[in-house]
């Protein structure tokens, strides 16, 4: 007997898995999502956050472009608060770009993408950051920023309200089968090692770049090509709208203003494993150099960190490589293909089209389960917490107005001063069982994502682990150290100028003032005997 039972187990806590969980729950199908890390900790959370208008695909991948157009419009309805309608520019800076333009215009027309040619003067009036190298400009109003963390959390929250469950740090180690029929999954808690089983009628493999590994547990092949992309985060927005190179999609050709920062993207390198994502200096350098061709201030801005994500490109068997491969997606019906009933994979695609992907795979699974309730995810808004989710950009003004005469709105405290995270933004997540680490808090609240990269707020968060979560000191201290360490790994790639000076402030605070390095050593010692503190006199 499995430990628990449900209708459908969804594997993968990225945008697709979260979207599937919501779709299932909205059709009245009981579901549990299992994710071996945190929600949005894989491909989704490491995307550059571009809400694709479709402009980047309209020449080479028309089908994907058309999906983007449609899904972008749907997301603006159902997930308004996760989106910032920045609009976007497609700019030409070279002869090659100019030669690409007719194809781009034609592609936009075919895909139904609104695209307006504007004069460089007009463009620069609207967006002073456009560089001197820019020769021609198209305005694409439907480009935008999609906050990948809010998107996933919003989907999961919506599903939870309908009875679904999401279990983080829960890895699938095997399946329970009854002949050809899957009847459940075996899972292991990646932190505690605890093993459990979940009985179910169907399993949806929504693990993106990891889909092949999950399928292999059933001796089934799913060919996903992991393609690494490196991104650089600048400490402020640089531009008000997204800026794309108007050319065949290539390295370093996009700038996304994302809430308080700007993200430069990206590269495309095939990697042997979705978790082997080395960040090469040449990639970082290339992002900054290419970005500065499009916008002023890119090379002079403070680079805050670099990170790498992995695209889950589905190998349809064509000869295509990396970017040439379709960003389209596929639903693999393993019952039909491999004779394993109750197992379905959804592969390929991109964050912008997550909902459509979820709809398609849920359609199939629901049909098999005999559920006829139609999909409503394109109509029903994602969450009821609209007002709470879109506040970051308005927070500076909301943080309290001292009025010396008469009533005074109190100045609110902040947990993270860089990203304006208030205590009330953090507190609820400490009660969420899915949240295990401070990185998880970061993904849900942006705490620690600003220029100081958690130097200050990590202490306050550690304190809350003790006071709100009742963890012991060493556990909370380790969590604080891990948050700092994870941040450090991203910042290391851009250690020059201000960021190197910042590093000295971080080491001064944690290693000198707090003596955190010794604390960690003391904790690592087998039994912290009183003698460890020195001879008592």
């Amino acid at each position: 007997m499995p430990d628990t039972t449900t209708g459908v187990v969804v594997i993968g806590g990225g945008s697709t898995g979260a979207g599937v969980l919501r779709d299932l729950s909205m059709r009245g199908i009981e579901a549990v999502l299992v994710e071996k890390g945190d929600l949005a900790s894989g491909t989704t959370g490491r995307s550059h956050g571009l809400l694709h208008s479709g402009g980047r695909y309209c020449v080479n991948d028309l089908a994907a472009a058309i999906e983007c157009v449609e899904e972008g419009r749907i997301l603006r309805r159902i997930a308004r608060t996760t989106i910032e309608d920045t609009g976007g520019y497609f700019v030409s800076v070279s002869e090659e770009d100019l030669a690409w333009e007719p194809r781009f215009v034609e592609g936009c027309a075919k895909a139904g993408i609104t695209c307006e040619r504007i004069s460089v003067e007009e463009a620069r009036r609207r967006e002073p950051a456009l560089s001197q190298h820019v020769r021609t400009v198209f305005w694409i109003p439907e480009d935008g920023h999609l906050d990948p963390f809010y998107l996933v959390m919003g989907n999961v929250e919506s599903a939870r309200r309908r009875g679904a469950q999401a279990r983080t740090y829960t890895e699938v180690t095997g399946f329970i089968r009854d002949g050809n029929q899957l009847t459940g999954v075996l899972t292991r808690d990646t932190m505690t090692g605890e093993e459990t089983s979940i009985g179910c009628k169907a399993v949806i493999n929504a693990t993106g770049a990891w889909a092949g590994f999950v399928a292999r547990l059933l001796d089934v092949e799913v060919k996903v090509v992991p393609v690494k992309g490196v991104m650089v985060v600048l400490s402020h927005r640089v531009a008000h709208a997204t800026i794309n190179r108007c050319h065949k999609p290539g390295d370093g050709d996009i700038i996304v203003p994302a809430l308080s920062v700007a993200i430069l993207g990206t590269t495309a390198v095939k990697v042997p494993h979705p978790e082997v994502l080395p960040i090469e200096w040449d990639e970082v350098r290339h992002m900054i150099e290419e970005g500065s061709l499009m916008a002023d201030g890119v090379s002079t801005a403070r680079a805050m960190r670099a990170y790498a994500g992995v695209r889950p490109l589905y190998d349809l068997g064509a000869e295509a490589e990396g970017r040439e491969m379709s960003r389209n997606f596929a639903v693999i019906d393993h019952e039909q293909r491999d004779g394993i009933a109750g197992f379905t994979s959804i592969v390929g695609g991109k964050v912008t089209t997550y909902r459509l992907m979820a709809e398609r795979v849920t359609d199939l699974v629901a049909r098999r389960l005999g559920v006829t309730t139609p999909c409503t995810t394109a109509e029903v808004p994602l969450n009821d917490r609209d007002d709470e989710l879109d506040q970051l950009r308005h927070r500076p003004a909301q943080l309290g107005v001292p009025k010396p005469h008469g009533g005074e709105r109190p100045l609110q405290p902040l947990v993270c001063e860089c990203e304006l995270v208030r205590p009330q933004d953090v507190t609820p997540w400490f009660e969420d069982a899915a949240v295990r680490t401070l990185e998880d808090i970061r993904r849900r609240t942006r705490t620690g994502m600003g220029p100081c990269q958690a130097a200050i707020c990590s202490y306050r968060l550690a304190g809350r682990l003790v006071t709100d979560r009742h963890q012991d000191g060493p556990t909370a201290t380790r969590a604080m150290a891990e948050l700092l360490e994870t941040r450090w790994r991203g910042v290391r790639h851009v250690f020059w100028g201000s960021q190197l000076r910042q590093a000295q402030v971080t080491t001064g605070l944690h290693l000198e003032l707090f003596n955190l390095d010794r604390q960690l050593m003391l904790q690592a010692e087998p039994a912290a005997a009183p003698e460890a503190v020195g001879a008592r006199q």
Partner: protein
Amino acid sequence: MKCDIAVVGSGLAALVATRTLQQAGRNAVLIWPGLSSLYFTYATVDVLGYSDLTTTQPVEQPEAGVAKLIADHPNHPYALAGLDALRSGTTLLIEWLRAAGFTWQGSLARNLLLPTAIGTPKPSCLYPESMAAGDLQRDEPIVFCGFVGYEDFVPELAASNLSRSWGRGDQSVRAIRVSLPGFDTSRLFTSIDLARSFEDKAFRREVASRIRREIAIDSVRVGVPAVLGLTHDTDVYSSFAAEVGHPVFEIPTLPPSVLGLRLFDRLRKHIQESGVEMIWAAPAHEAEVSDGQCRRIYLKSAGREHPIDARAYVLALEDMVDGALRAGVHTVVDPFFHQSLAHHAVPTERTDESLFRPQPFASIGYAVTDRLQPSAGDGHPLARNVFLAGGAIAGYDPVGTKSRGGLAIATGYRAAKEAMAA
């Protein structure tokens, strides 16, 4: 502007150098590029906490520890400055603190172990009176007291950590919180706001009585966040401690650091009021050298360059953080002599993969002669009348050994002495 000796910097090294010159009757000008970014690390002055980077065993006798370090590492900045400079500089600093109205304690003979805000024992040998009762070589149980709504010191975290590395049983360390009269916990308050409130007698008395009520037992000591007064710390501390009725000690908080603020505010104010001129807002750069002598340096302030012509210069800046070095993408340069101090093909070479191990960037700095003059690494000075102190000296990495304060004292003192002789 012309002067006898120009001291550039704002950290402890610069202050010690300036005071050394002042005491010797020299006309020093303190060129201050802004408060050091690392001001908050100076809650105490740490001379040598650990003899190496891997041990958790603290150095018991810092002076002996430094002597051994000098013997083992003849190129260490401590060795260049010399043990005598550390001793004389420390005496000078202690006397200065007393003259400035501070009650600091300690000596080079012995490290105390003082709990940090995460509850880790930290070896320090010079400390304000208000921190002394925290010494973990004493036996009384400890109560960490935090304030409701104040997140920059978390008593529960400190208590939980410390109870595992110190004490006898769970009763030895515990945490309490008291609410502060007149403070609405839903609103922002910083250590500065608290420190100001503690200067008020009635406030202090009320907080003390709330703490007393929470602690029903005798013979404990109470660790509170370091917010006992913005400036007049000694009065605030002693009267508060008397009212609490138990020994009280302060623990440094997240920045804004009241302890760092008090120390630098007081020393800067004292040295100025006792006649040393200070030039505020003046980042310095560009040493003009001819015939082996620096003729002038430039200050960049109010949008233009001001020349400073001195007979000798002490450059006492803390690493990159205060502009002693400028780190480009590949090259770290010095803004005074335009040397390339380090070159990295890839920026990641500057750091270790882990934050918690020694960082290569911390050791980058100016090569110096045995008189602390900047050199190109060949033992010959770039300018005979320029002397370096503090973090800008190559090989100066106080982080792992907890030796920032001592290094600042020793190099600041020695550089000042050399500047006088130049």
